[in-house]
């Protein structure tokens, strides 16, 4: 009698071959399903050619003091500004502890660097071997992303409470170091990786 009950499987207490097949199939479906779904999710991520987007070279020799140009680097606009002495002065004359975002947000430095003007300017750019660059020029150059860290609009030059950038979309004010000072934007404008490849060329990326 016990023999018969065991063989009927599902009705008895012992797991049967059918239970095993059932669980194994379910498991294979779950794991296989996850592996199948992943390619369909991952295909939305930036493609290889997008990721390989070359760096951007900026000619800084023709940049006048107080002039600003906008360049595209990795699909995004970036401000390249050669600041006047007064603007650098104003940017340095700031109490870091009182800033809304105290991180330098500089890809040349990594996380945690304080948001001093030195840490945001092209002073942090690498200098290729044999290239000579004046300190004053490096300190005056500021390169930042041109997308407001709130929702991505391009701030207007020379406007706002700090005379630097003002984002018209929801009213964010940035100072002459590209740091957020007032408004809804949470972070300072980020500084891309930079290298002086010659006395007149700054390479982003």
């Amino acid at each position: 009698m016990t023999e018969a009950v065991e063989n009927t499987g599902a009705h008895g207490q012992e797991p049967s071959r059918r239970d095993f097949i059932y669980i194994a199939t379910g498991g294979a479906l779950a794991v296989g399903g996850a592996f199948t779904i992943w390619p369909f999710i991952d295909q939305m991520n930036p493609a290889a050619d997008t990721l390989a987007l070359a760096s951007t070279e900026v000619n800084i020799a023709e940049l006048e003091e107080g002039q600003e140009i906008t360049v595209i680097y990795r699909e995004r606009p970036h401000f390249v500004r050669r600041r006047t002495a007064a603007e650098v002065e104003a940017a340095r004359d700031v109490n870091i502890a009182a800033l809304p975002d105290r991180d330098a947000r500089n890809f040349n430095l990594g996380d945690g660097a304080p948001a001093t003007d030195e840490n945001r300017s092209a002073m942090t750019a690498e200098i290729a071997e044999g290239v000579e660059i004046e300190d004053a020029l490096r300190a005056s150059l500021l390169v930042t992303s041109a997308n407001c860290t709130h929702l991505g609009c391009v701030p207007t030059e020379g406007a706002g409470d700090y005379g630097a950038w003002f984002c018209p979309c929801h009213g964010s004010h940035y100072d002459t170091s590209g740091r957020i000072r007032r408004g809804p934007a949470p972070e300072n404008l980020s500084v891309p990786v930079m290298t002086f490849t010659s006395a007149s060329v700054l390479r982003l990326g």
Partner: protein
Amino acid sequence: MSGPSTYEPKTGFTKWLDARLPIVRLGWDSFVDFPTPRNLNYWYTFGGILTVCLMIQIITGIVLAMHYVPHIDHAFASVQRIDRDVNYGWLIRSIHAVGASMFFLAVYMHIFRGLYYGSYKAPRELLWILGVVIYLLMMAAAFLGYVLPWGQMSYWGAMVITNLLGAFPLVGGPITEWLWGGFSVGNATLNRFFSLHYLIPFLIAGVVGLHIWALHVPGNNNPTGIEVKSNRDTLPFHPYYTSKDGFAIVLFMVIFAFFVFYWPDALGHSDNFIPADPLVTPALIVPEWYLLPFYAILRAVPDKLGGVLLMFGAIGILFVLPWLDTSKVRSMRYRPLARWFFGFFIVACLGLGWAGAELPDTPVPGLGAIGVDFLLLGRVLTIYYFAYFLVILPILGFVEKPSERPASIEESVLGSKSKPAPAAVPAE
């Protein structure tokens, strides 16, 4: 409410078909014989109008997709080409663009109707929730569609909205890049938005099917909010409501046609006739009119994540509305207090829309003298918006004394024999 089917196939073919695929029976039970409260007023015609809107969008959309080029270098020009060179392209694109606005106009009427007559209350909670899902899908479809012409508003609207997701800690950054398929809104983004814009209307059609199914189990609510008690409370859907809906659809189409032919660009934004330029943001970025109230809520909060959460919350709260309203009485027709708060709620929604369309620092006309700008207006109205759902409706159920209700739907229409019939009972 759906009783046994009364459909009787008459011809040999329909008998043969009915035994195999009872599709005619389904149509008969759903749209011909379906018993419907006899007191539905014109506010109840928007369901039918919305069905027509969906069909118009799908048909015109399929045609437009034959001529549109989803590439950042060609999209803007291809839309201009549709307007100028494609035979009747101007007409079809205008119908599609105006149609989006008409669709939202109708859905807002439909939603406010449901709010006023308590159509979200048991046993219609799921019906209501499915409706909110449709509304969400509609907003997604409209947003994606607005990006396709690749004008300045398209581009910057896409930028601002996709950046909203970046507000979420940790996952925000990767999710936005995943959505863009790049480092910013670009060609990859435009391509996938086109693909999804084409997909969503069919999802909507599917959920509409569920919505109607969920409607046909308990049957229509009605202006009295009283359940159907006997056959005398109802009329067959056809011809009574097919004709009423049909008449309303024709009237709606007159308005629709007015915009299509005489004012096709009135509901859009002039900046969208400038090709997208990633280097220059327009001075004032505004979404389409039907999303303005949510935009105002977003801007009411000085914090990025807070604003995003509140904006999503404004829609999310609709999902739980059936459990927030504690009143036993469905229709606000018999809720003297709720009716007032509902009126203010409509004003608040319109006011939020206004606030969303203006720059935050602009003084409100007439109130500027006392220091009220649109930011402050938006904040006050945002508070009311949430208070309506979270405070007013829950409390009102306990403190409000409902007025007297008719004994049945029939009585509300035809008057009761026991009482001296009021001279003119509102026919609705």
